[in-house]
């Protein structure tokens, strides 16, 4: 894990240095920066010339990064500290993600179990077909459509943001109202895929010997379903939730930007558009770290849930 982190952060650092021109972006954002300011930016970001300069810059950047947010280079636009911006965005995203993940995954799994009870019945094909169509819709299409219909045409829900413009302080009712549309978009996606996979997983174990044994012992059908069938079928689905985290964040980027919801997705796109590499790099490190951690969790979870699998 540690060597991978070193490698990953170096690749990210090198990518940022090669793909962007931080000094040019800095001058574009601050056209009247004095020579000292410019030198300060070069020093704080470690923008040394040449191939050796990249390694030297990486070393200094990593040291400052590990030392804590107070030592991170300041953002290019507005010269602000990056950490508060990042935590604000992360908080908003976690709220949106947490809500939609709980709703989407639980209904998805529930619908998948219902569909798998009678394969081929009208209920099964209804759930299956709906999931199929919903899964085929790109998230930005559903987001734009929901916005057009429910926010612009009908005016039932606010189109963008967390609070109405000019709002101050905390207001749970407003927050929920602004969350409804983005949550629906993410729920549609998760629901579609989870219902199909739960159904496939339950059907996969449907012919297992231990289910026949359980039924032969006279265990009531409800208990067979939840204690034997679903419990085993959900092993791969549960580990997928962990693996999915990174991918879901990708979907959130789209949703957040359409609804101008100030989370990680808006943070990311804004940083890209400004060429704001001091903001971008910590974001990417956090994403890579999260992906690695959740992959690890998925591996461990898999082994814990399924005793047949052993970690060596």
């Amino acid at each position, binding site marked *: 894990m540690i060597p991978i982190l070193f490698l990953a952060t170096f690749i990210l650092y090198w990518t940022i240095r090669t793909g962007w021109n931080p000094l040019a972006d800095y001058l574009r954002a601050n056209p009247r920066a004095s020579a000292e300011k410019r030198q300060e930016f070069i020093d704080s970001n470690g923008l040394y010339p040449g191939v050796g300069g990249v390694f030297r810059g990486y070393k200094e950047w990593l040291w400052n990064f590990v030392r804590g947010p107070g030592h991170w280079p300041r953002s290019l636009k507005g010269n602000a500290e990056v950490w508060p911006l990042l935590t604000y965005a992360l908080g908003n995203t976690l709220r949106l993600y947490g809500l939609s993940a709980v709703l989407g995954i639980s209904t998805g799994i529930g619908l998948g179990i219902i569909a798998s009870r009678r394969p081929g019945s009208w209920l099964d094909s209804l759930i299956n077909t709906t999931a199929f169509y919903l899964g085929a819709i790109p998230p930005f299409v559903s987001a734009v459509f929901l916005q057009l219909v429910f926010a612009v045409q009908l005016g039932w829900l606010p189109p963008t943001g967390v609070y109405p413009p000019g709002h101050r302080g905390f207001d749970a009712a407003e927050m929920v109202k602004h969350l409804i549309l983005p949550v629906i978009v993410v729920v549609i996606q998760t629901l579609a895929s989870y219902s199909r996979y739960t159904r496939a997983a339950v059907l996969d174990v449907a012919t297992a010997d231990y289910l026949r044994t359980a039924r032969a012992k006279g265990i009531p059908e409800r208990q067979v379903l939840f204690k034997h069938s679903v419990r085993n079928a959900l092993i791969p689905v549960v580990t997928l939730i962990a693996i999915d985290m990174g991918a879901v*964040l990708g979907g959130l980027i789209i949703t957040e930007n359409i609804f101008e919801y100030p989370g990680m997705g808006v943070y*990311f796109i804004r940083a890209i558009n400004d060429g704001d590499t001091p903001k971008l790099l910590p974001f990417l490190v956090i994403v890579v770290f999260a992906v690695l951690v959740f992959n690890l969790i998925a591996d461990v979870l898999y082994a814990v849930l399924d005793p047949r699998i052993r970690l060596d």
Partner: protein
Amino acid sequence: MTEPIDTRIEEVRTELLSEVALGVGETPPDEVGDLDAREGISRTSRSPLQLAWRRYWRHRGAAVSTVILAIMLLVVLATPLTARYGVTEAVRPSQNQFLPPQDVAWFGTNQLGRDVYSLLLVGVRTSLFIGVASAILSTVIGTAVGSFAGLRGGAFDNVMMRVTDLFLAFPFLVAIVIARQLLGGLSFLDPIIGERTSIRFIIVLFAIFGWMIVARLVRGQVLALKEREFVEASRAAGASDLRIVVAHLLPNSIGPVIVALTLSVIAAVVGESTLSFFGFGPQPGAGSISLGQLVQGAGAAARQGNWWLVVFPCGALVLLAVCINFIGDGLRDAFDPKMDGGH
């Protein structure tokens, strides 16, 4: 989630599911004989391909989708005949902006007074080209890497699978936007893949991320097949690795590869639209346009209430996505009857 992400997850999922349910490895491809008998089809022998063909057309969604897609392809490829205006041509000399759908412009006009219907034909053509080209490219790379890794195993295999795992778990949009910036910054690549906004660039970009799904799939197939008797016989007869792959392993795993190819076409089309939606997409030169560029305006148009600028481009995209997904589904059933989720 975007379609590309969805298909990538699907790969992970199918693998996980199949590992748990079937032990390890993929389904062996020789179930066709049994199925023939079980379904009570006549005893006259049919080749596996003929059987697959029959199963494909019996899949109602796939059959209908094939017809719809064929019609769309015909209309789109015949743009000189079917388009009513040029890409840069206004429908009327003046007062032509934001016209709702009417006689002079069936699908309305955009902010520049151009016919959405004609733009849509050109856009779908460009996007399908991007999709097909990058799907073929990534399938070729993925097949080569996957069969090599599966056959040889060892360190290369390990490293490749780890890298693939991480990339599949990484947010697609983040990865692709960063890679786009990086590739554009490497000036020595410019003569090969062109500017960040060229179509060639976007095809290479999607291929770079698309090959891993195919590689993983082919690797799984190769692992399942390589211990079989016919491969052993071939090796005993002195066949080289290349010959074993080309003559024995690939023909036997062609089904899943074709399914993956189909799905990566739509993944690339949706990916192009998504990138364009954020302004990172390709900008085909004068006289051309991509579906993504049309979709790009949808967000702003929705807030202004110009519904036709949302409904038609997004509708075309969804129609394409649904059709190609159905076709992929049909192909999967046709090539691998066991995957037909319990019907």
